[in-house]
């Protein structure tokens, strides 16, 4: 089965932060937690580029490798999700993740972290699809509704692409060929072992 991926075309991203805002709003993400963020490289210099980054839903996800309670699982679409009932908030995943995806609400003293929260690829969690319990813990399940992640769907410049990895790679490849340049599929080599070659 195809693997769902994100691809941020940095040559199109205008750092408008709409993906960040849309994600927070769609899933009612609490204060202090950002499932998605935009990072600007070479800020203010020639060749400045912005990349919208969230969980990349890696193959052989390092977060799952270090999780002491095995709370991670992968869906048939290749989306890496986690079970908040099993999560103990140890924080190991956040130190294993190359993309800074896992987020923790601080809930108590001694640095006690609450349950981990991260991008679900708008695919909810282990609870029944589109149930209230699922919404409260993980946010909306757009994939179950037949929709793609909101961040990519509403990106004004179509910089952020979401969908079947092969299809979005083709779209990106076509763009690079047409316009003659491309800064690369950011994070793909780290997440999937190979990048999009043109």
């Amino acid at each position, binding site marked *: 089965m195809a693997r769902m991926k994100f691809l941020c075309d940095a040559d199109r991203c205008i750092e408008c932060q709409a993906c960040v805002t849309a994600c927070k709003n769609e899933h009612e993400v609490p204060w202090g937690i950002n499932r998605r963020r935009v*990072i600007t*490289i070479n*800020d203010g210099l020639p*060749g400045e580029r912005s990349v919208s980054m969230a969980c990349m839903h890696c193959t052989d996800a390092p977060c799952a490798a270090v999780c*002491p*309670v095995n*709370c991670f699982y992968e869906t048939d679409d290749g989306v890496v999700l986690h079970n908040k009932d099993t999560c103990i908030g140890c924080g190991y995943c956040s130190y294993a*993740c190359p993309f800074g995806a896992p987020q923790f609400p601080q809930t108590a003293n001694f640095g006690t972290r609450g349950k981990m929260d991260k991008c679900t690829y708008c695919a909810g969690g282990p609870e029944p699809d589109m149930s209230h319990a699922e919404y409260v813990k993980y946010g909306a399940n757009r994939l179950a509704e037949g929709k793609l992640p909101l961040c990519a769907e509403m990106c004004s410049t179509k910089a952020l692409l979401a969908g079947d990895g092969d299809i979005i790679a083709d779209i990106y490849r076509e763009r690079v060929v047409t316009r003659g*340049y491309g800064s690369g599929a950011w*994070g793909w080599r780290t997440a999937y072992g190979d990048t999009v070659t043109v």
Partner: protein
Amino acid sequence: MTIFSRLFTAFGLVLVLSLGAPMASAQVNPTESSVTEDSLFEALGSAPVTGRTTIPDGKAGYLINDQNKSWAVLQGQTLHTISIWAVIGMVAILALFYLVRGKIRVDSGLSGHKILRFNGVERFAHWTLATTFIILALTGLNLIIGKSVILPLFGEATFGTLSTWGKIAHNYLAWPFMVALVLIVLLWIVHNVPNKLDMEWIKQGGGLFKKGVHPPARKFNAGQKLIFWSVVIGGAALSYTGIMLLFPGEAGTAADWQFYQTIHALVAAALSAIVIAHIYIGSVGMEGAFDAMGSGEVDENWAKEHHSLWVEEVKSAKDGDSKQAATPAE
């Protein structure tokens, strides 16, 4: 400012701008100047790709940190294997030792006469350290091997609840452990300074491997000194790295935190193995040994065999006391 000087300034400004304009308006070739992932990776080596982000957490300003994956392998596989083998290995060695040597008996038999070895304060410190250490070790071990041992046996829900409570216990019991560790150092450090007797004890293998061999020792023999220093140094290392794990903000970068976690896991595995041996020799491994920390009073013959010089010290001190007590009456 007169109208002429204003005009002069205005002309000057236009002149400067028109000279600078060709540079500013030149077409920037986005292909040439844009940053590409491949070239950035090449330039940075394994260092993280960083930039600026507008969300409040400044630490979120890195884009890709490939190094985190190496720690994931270290934690997920290497430390997992080391921890399991440290525990299984030590249990196997002790089982073998028990089969060959059996329970170490008091050669001269029990005398029935008891002498005080550890007073209430010493036993309180020891048992506070011991109980907290055992819970810390078990809950810590659960984080490493629980998913391959307890999870298949009890299922995700039970294992999740158990691990949550385990983590809370680990975070909070660390503090009484540290207090007891300080107490142990204050109480026993004077008795644990290495000296010439220890060399002799080690040469004779502590009498562990041969019946009837009893090298002389004061309050603590070389074996016990090894346990003491392992616990003190290992415990201090665990405490320091543990505090860094509890307050990740204090630890520094992700690489620093990963370093502390690795040290924490390695020292914990080593100290757990050492303590398993300590528990063995203090309970089923040796007749009469448990009394020292149980009631605090040991059999005199046991004491003579394992701590001959200490018995003499205690006896002469007692004689001295009774003599002193007798003198004022003169």
